[in-house]
């Protein structure tokens, strides 16, 4: 890397100031404001009242909040398994650069990543529709009518159904990171293993897995973090219903602040969510640091 000596025209800080102003004004300021709001009881309109940490006490005993958070954790665990495995499978399939049409398949499989989540919601609303949706129509047509369900209206099925819709997008992310990691592995290792008579599982276990460990850490943590930010799909498809069966923390935050007009409490929910996410981010940075040191 080059370090240039600064010439005496303008200070280098001058180049940073524009970014700093926007970043401070529209990111740092709201962040500080969020902490402040959580200390006040406020309906968003009338005068607010300072109540110290009372919202935090209330949060600890708020069953709706804990239920929403448990749904996010459920989501996180499922997310670490389903889209990660599917993405890995596809990456192994598609990273064989010799495969016919590999590039086109990469393009197709990754495409849901660029759809807006409202488009995704629209597609899955149709797939799950109880009367004309793809799943129930298909089940009926093969004579399994007794298995048809109201996928998004049943409190036992709604969360897994939403999760599947989300996974339909998220696997594209895991796939692309795995492909990048696998492509970086020297083909020579696989050739040598084949010469030595290693089977597919042994190749996977002893060559592929060790070389994608860093990518795997990244994917698991990014996936974990995004599991706590599930908003769009749930908001469009169920708003957390039926009852609170699919309530997740971000939707609960919005409901508290804007529907129920408990702005300070909504801010407290946001902070709790932020703490979980920052916790995972710090863990992520620490683990990345470890991998970098051992490289």
């Amino acid at each position, binding site marked *: 890397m*080059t370090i240039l000596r600064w010439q005496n025209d303008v200070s280098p800080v001058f180049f940073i100031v524009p970014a700093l102003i926007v*970043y401070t004004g529209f990111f740092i300021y709201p962040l500080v404001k969020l902490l402040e709001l959580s200390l006040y009881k406020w309906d968003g309109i009338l005068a607010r009242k300072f109540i110290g940490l009372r919202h935090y006490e209330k949060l600890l005993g708020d069953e709706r909040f804990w239920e929403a958070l448990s749904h996010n954790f459920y989501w996180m665990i499922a997310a670490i398994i389903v889209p990660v495995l599917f993405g890995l499978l596809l990456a192994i399939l598609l990273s064989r650069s010799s495969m016919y049409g590999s590039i086109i398949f990469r393009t197709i499989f990754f495409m849901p990543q660029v759809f807006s989540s409202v488009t995704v919601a629209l597609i899955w609303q149709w797939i799950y529709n109880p009367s004309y949706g793809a799943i129930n129509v298909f089940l009926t047509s093969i004579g399994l009518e007794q298995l048809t369900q109201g996928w998004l209206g049943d409190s036992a099925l709604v969360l897994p159904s939403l999760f599947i819709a989300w996974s339909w997008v998220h696997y594209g992310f895991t796939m692309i990171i795995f492909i*990048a990691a696998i492509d970086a592995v020297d083909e020579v290792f696989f050739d040598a293993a084949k010469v030595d008579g290693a089977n597919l599982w042994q190749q996977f276990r002893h060559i592929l897995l060790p070389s994608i460990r860093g990518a795997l850490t990244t994917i698991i943590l990014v996936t974990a973090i995004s599991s706590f930010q599930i908003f769009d799909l749930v908001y469009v498809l169920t708003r957390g219903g039926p009852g609170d069966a699919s309530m997740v923390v971000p939707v609960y935050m919005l409901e508290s602040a804007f529907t129920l007009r408990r702005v300070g409490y909504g801010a407290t929910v946001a902070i709790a969510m932020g703490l979980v996410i920052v916790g995972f981010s710090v863990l992520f940075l620490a683990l990345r640091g470890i991998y970098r040191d051992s490289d």
Partner: protein
Amino acid sequence: MAYTAIAGFLSLIVVFPLVWVIATSLKDRRQIIQNPLGLPEVYQWANYADAWQEGNFGAYFINSILVVIPTALGVVVLSLLAAYAFAMYRFRGKNALFTFFLIGLTVPLGILIIPIFYQMVSLKLVNNLWALILPQTAIGLPFAILLLRGFIQELPKEVLDAGRIDGCSNWGILRFIVMPLSRPALLSVMIFNIVWVWNQFLLPVVLIQKASARTLPQGLSVFMGRYGADFGLLMAGATISFIPVVIVYIIFQRQFIKGIAAGALSGI
């Protein structure tokens, strides 16, 4: 060939819903009911005209463009300036400033939506597209600065020294040497932000209440609630909202994927 067949079969999970959306957008009511899964017999292009005008997707489309362009340009220009200074110069407080920007990588936009709403209320920007542009530019900066700083640090030393010897000013080195050489990274940042901002949903849901200022994803969700039964129109609206971003993705997929991979894999 066997692998191609497996991949082809699996790709149906993407291709099938997509073809269905587009096929439905070209059917009239009768065809949708009688032949829900087939291809349209008669192409009903009127659905698009109706969605564009009566469904207001024309206005939503323009609003989305008016948000995406200033945001993506803002992120690219501001982050290039900052990344250049961070990558190439020594100055007091540099590490502290850089760390200050890194805070933005750990806090997602979603948790700030409540204070952002009241900030926009006091700035009288609710229902104004600037309410979407400013926060998204701010939240886009940390990652862009990190990515560009990394890229600029790797530029060949000789070229930069040549510029210095030729008497370029600090500004001149940025303008005539660093900026042209950084084009691939700038494009990555730009494409990544275009796609992200185009699809942003939470911010408009809270900050835009007036129908005429809605962006595409928000307009589509309102449309789902109101015209949920008129599938042809609904799917035409959905197609209008995803076609531009799919085109951008297909043209620039290398840069886009590079942006995503860099975001996930770059060491900090």
